[in-house]
């Protein structure tokens, strides 16, 4: 079924259309939530909260394509996750002096599959993971991240460098598999 038509019907309050939209988008959006929140149940709860807000404010939404719809929903989900993390006060603060710029072997990461990257990112501690997600995957500046999370800009930078160094270590630990794949 066409997404534009689904949006139109969902705006009218059709439960079937809403269910179709939910089935269509919930999988990907749950992964977005999981990137920020490690716990599966929490991520599902946040997904439902995000969809609830989406359907409640659907009247204000004008459909400009599937990409716009997904981005809007993703923004809602990210905001929900950040609110959740802020409530839990889950960010570990690392002093700026302790942070050193760690070069990350990005080629190595490029060679990994999406699922492997996801599994690596999920293993990061919550502070590192959040800043890594926001900076690397969402493309936010450190200033924006600092204001969004209520932390200092330097803290955001240090968290990112720590996250990169940790990913580096993880890649080294997975070295055998990685080497095998390179040789192929």
């Amino acid at each position: 079924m066409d997404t534009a038509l689904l949006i139109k019907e969902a705006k009218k309050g059709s439960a079937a259309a809403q269910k179709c939209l939910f089935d269509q988008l919930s999988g990907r959006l749950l992964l977005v939530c999981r990137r920020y929140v490690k716990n599966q149940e929490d991520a599902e709860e946040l997904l439902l909260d995000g969809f609830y807000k989406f359907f409640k404010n659907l009247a204000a939404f004008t459909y400009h394509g599937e990409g716009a719809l997904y981005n809007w929903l993703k923004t809602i989900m990210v905001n929900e996750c950040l609110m959740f993390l802020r409530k839990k006060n889950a960010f570990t603060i690392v002093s700026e002096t302790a942070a050193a710029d760690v070069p990350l072997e990005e080629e190595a990461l490029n060679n990994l599959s999406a699922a492997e990257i996801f599994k690596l990112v999920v293993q990061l501690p919550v502070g590192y993971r959040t800043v890594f997600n926001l900076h690397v995957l969402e493309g936010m500046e450190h200033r924006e991240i600092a204001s969004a999370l209520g932390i200092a800009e330097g803290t955001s930078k240090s968290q990112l460098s720590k996250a990169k160094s940790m990913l580096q270590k993880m890649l080294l630990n997975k070295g055998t598999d990685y080497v095998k794949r390179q040789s192929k």
Partner: protein
Amino acid sequence: MLNDNQNNSTGWKTKLDSLNDVCDDTFDRSAAWDKLHHRLTKKPVRKKFGWYWAAAAFLLLIAAIGLLINNDRQPPLVRQTTQPLMPVPARKQGTVKQPVSIIKIIPPVPVESKTPLAKKADQTNKQKSNHEVLPGTVIIENLVVTNDNLPMAPPPLAIIDSVPVANVNTTKVKQTYRVVHINEIIKQTEPSRVARTEKPSFPLKFNAKKFHTEMPVVSAAHSLVTIRLSTQN
């Protein structure tokens, strides 16, 4: 270098966005939808109006009304009269100017038994001259007097300059009565001790003739009654 980083990050982004089936094994879509649908269809619970707020507002209203009523009932103790101050004469060299207060005490008018007509006339006079000073009031006037005018400088009185004229109403003193025993009253009203001013008289028959008698004053020494005959009636 920066471009490479951006390209790499966008690469991961697209990779991660295309992920669909990483967590699908544990995610029950239908159950999640049921939950969401229940939340969407559930009517929002209207918050009950806080009764405590209503009670607080009511109490405040009552307190405000009470204060207003109390303010209206209590008259001001000291009134500032609208009388203009006396003009201050121009200062001369060598003269000492001292503010002097003159206190006029108007004695209360003794209470007299007035006829209703006189009382009415008094009331009309009072209405005509409202600015007249009531009896029993003290008037303090602030004056500036030079040494030329006064042969002897009177001692200056301490006054409040901001209150040039003040009328202080004297309150009526309640009359107190002495407690008297009832026997004292009876003794006072005994007929033997009361000095009679009028001579009692009564009719008397003597030899089939009617006489009008006058009773003389009874003396305490002897109980004899002397009768004086008269030809009245």
